[in-house]
């Protein structure tokens, strides 16, 4: 613990010396760079936090990445870190680094809605384990990020609180369901964020925003306190601007948690070490023939293949592999997910938390429940609950849910066979760049097809990473490349991701996000969604 008297003897936040970078520079730093400056005492946690809060204040009215901004709490936590560091306490290297938290994770004393009206105003009495670990490391939570309601969607348009906008083009989607976390990181509102990935909700937003996103191996990060969408598919993971930053956060949140019975008891290697050792010489990279098709947008395909050539130049070996059942993965996913979701969302019963709507004239508890769920759930959530209820109902169970579980076996077998030939698989993260807001809102199936390349990893529990691969020539929008590794080989993804990132940064003369539009020069849009 810190000595209270020590704080008075050391430089406060406004007096960090001549090395103190301007706020506009602080927000551009990566978490690793911020950590180095914080540890060296070149900048205070309060300065870093204030710079990011100021940035949020400037741009989030336009981007709408946040549902809740914990202004006071963040500054108090930052001051505490400065005090403890000044007192000589040994702190985690990320202590004082700001973090955004997807609103699907419970945060004690901070509102948590999962993007739904049914949880409006709910203050959880406990922290998710992943959140708890970041707090224990001394990270500063700036707030909760927007998402599709209960993580159902690929565009963040299904949030009950209005959509998030893509910082690269405000008329376009930031991906989903974790569009808020990805947009916050891409808009330099925060260097790191937590996301959740059930069918691509970390990786696809990374793809469309020029950021990095990782879905760890199923069970690598505790799901305790993650409001469940589909329990056998959900996984929590990091969102960042660089692969190293993601690794720093990954090392904080991963590891066994007795509160989650599906948490793996494995001892995990350091992902940061994997980044530092990054080398693709001799690495066998498999291209999945079934996902390298003509339905991929030309610019996405171009950047994907250029990245592969670059990896080849760095010593990797590119091999074509088959995954014949991947084409059935979406169908299986859209049976398994609604089935599990219909069960998980039964907990929103108007009794223990959240909204309660009583029908006119009153009613039984069941009638109150039905009226509450009608009023509290959005259209996509209702659609999937009904779909899941149908897939699980007697007489249809075998044909739908049972068959989907068999496809899951077949997808796993495809992965097993592919990983006998190669070390990692590579695919375009999603078939297109960011589509326009509203474009797919009335066509659920078209929205679902966007997850074609990300879903197989969730069905099989294997880890996946999306790393920026460049801008599509035809629309100037970001493109991501996805790598997939066998279960428990998350470190391999950090290695190949970091090696590609290094090679691409050398080509681009810096990170891709340096090319993003200056949001402070963009005219705020009409009809803000706050």
């Amino acid at each position, binding site marked *: 613990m810190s000595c209270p008297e020590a704080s008075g003897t050391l430089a406060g936040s406004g007096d960090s010396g001549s090395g103190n970078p301007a706020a506009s520079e602080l927000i551009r730093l990566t978490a690793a760079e911020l950590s180095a400056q914080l540890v060296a005492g070149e900048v205070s946690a309060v300065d870093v936090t204030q710079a990011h809060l100021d940035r949020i204040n400037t741009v989030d009215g336009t981007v709408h990445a946040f549902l809740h901004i914990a202004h006071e709490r963040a500054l108090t936590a930052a001051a505490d870190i400065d005090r403890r560091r000044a007192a000589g306490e040994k702190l985690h290297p990320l202590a004082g680094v700001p973090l955004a938290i997807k609103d699907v994770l419970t945060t004690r004393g901070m509102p948590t809605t999962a993007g739904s009206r049914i949880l409006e105003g*709910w*203050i959880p*009495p406990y922290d998710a384990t992943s959140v708890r670990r970041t707090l224990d490391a001394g990270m500063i939570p700036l707030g909760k990020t927007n998402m599709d309601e209960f993580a159902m969607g690929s565009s963040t348009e299904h949030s009950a609180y209005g959509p998030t906008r893509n910082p690269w083009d405000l008329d376009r989607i930031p991906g989903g369901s974790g569009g808020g976390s990805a947009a916050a990181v891409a808009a330099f509102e925060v260097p790191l964020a937590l996301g959740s990935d059930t069918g691509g909700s970390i990786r696809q937003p990374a793809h469309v925003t020029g950021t990095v996103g990782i879905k760890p*191996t*199923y*069970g690598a990060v505790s799901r305790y306190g993650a409001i469940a969408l589909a329990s*056998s598919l959900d996984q929590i993971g990091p969102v960042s601007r660089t692969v190293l930053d993601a690794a720093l956060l990954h090392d904080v949140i991963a590891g066994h948690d007795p509160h989650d*019975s*599906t948490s*793996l008891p494995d001892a995990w290697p350091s992902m940061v070490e994997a980044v530092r050792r990054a080398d693709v010489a001799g690495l066998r990279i498999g291209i999945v023939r079934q996902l390298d098709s003509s339905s991929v947008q030309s610019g996405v395909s171009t950047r994907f293949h250029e990245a592969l050539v670059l990896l080849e130049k760095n010593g990797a070996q590119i091999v074509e592999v088959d995954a014949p059942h991947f084409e*059935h993965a979406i*169908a*299986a996913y*859209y*049976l398994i997910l609604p089935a599990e979701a*219909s069960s998980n969302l*039964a907990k929103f*019963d*108007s*009794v*223990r*938390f*959240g909204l*309660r709507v*009583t*029908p006119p004239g*009153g*009613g*039984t*508890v*069941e*009638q*109150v429940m*039905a009226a509450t769920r*009608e009023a509290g759930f959005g*259209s996509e959530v*209702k*659609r999937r*609950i*009904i*779909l899941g*209820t*149908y897939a699980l*109902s007697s007489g249809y169970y075998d*044909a*739908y849910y*049972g*068959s989907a*579980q*068999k*496809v*899951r*076996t*077949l997808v*796993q077998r495809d992965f097993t066979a592919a990983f006998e030939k190669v070390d990692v698989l590579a695919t375009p993260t999603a078939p297109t760049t960011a589509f326009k807001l509203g474009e797919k809102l009335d066509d*659920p*199936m078209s929205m679902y097809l966007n997850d074609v390349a990300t879903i197989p990893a969730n*069905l099989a*529990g*294997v880890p996946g990473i999306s790393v920026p691969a460049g801008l599509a020539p035809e629309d100037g929008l970001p493109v991501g490349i996805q790598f997939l590794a066998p279960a428990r080989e998350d470190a391999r993804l950090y290695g190949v991701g970091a090696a590609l990132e290094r090679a691409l940064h050398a080509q681009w003369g810096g990170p891709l996000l340096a090319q993003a539009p200056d949001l402070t020069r963009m005219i705020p849009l009409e009809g803000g969604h706050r």
Partner: protein
Amino acid sequence: MSDITAEQVAHLAHLARIALTPHEIEHMTRELGQIMSAVERVNEVATPDVPPTSHPIALHNVFRADVVGNTLTTAEALAGAPEADGTRFVVSAILGEEQ
């Protein structure tokens, strides 16, 4: 097989305890029909010889140690409830008129 009727959707909504409006039922009947036609494809490859997978990385017999740990207090557990009496959640009548 995907000929879902409005009556079926209304029944499913009842099972799921969602008081859908007639308009929603009509809309959802059409959408569910389209979605089910697409997801029915699982049956193209789900042959009897393939075993089902319910969980991607199966763990067996996961139990915690039988020791008392920190749990929420009653006040914390009730804090988010729409209605509570200090020790219990309060709901309206559980039994309907037909009982």
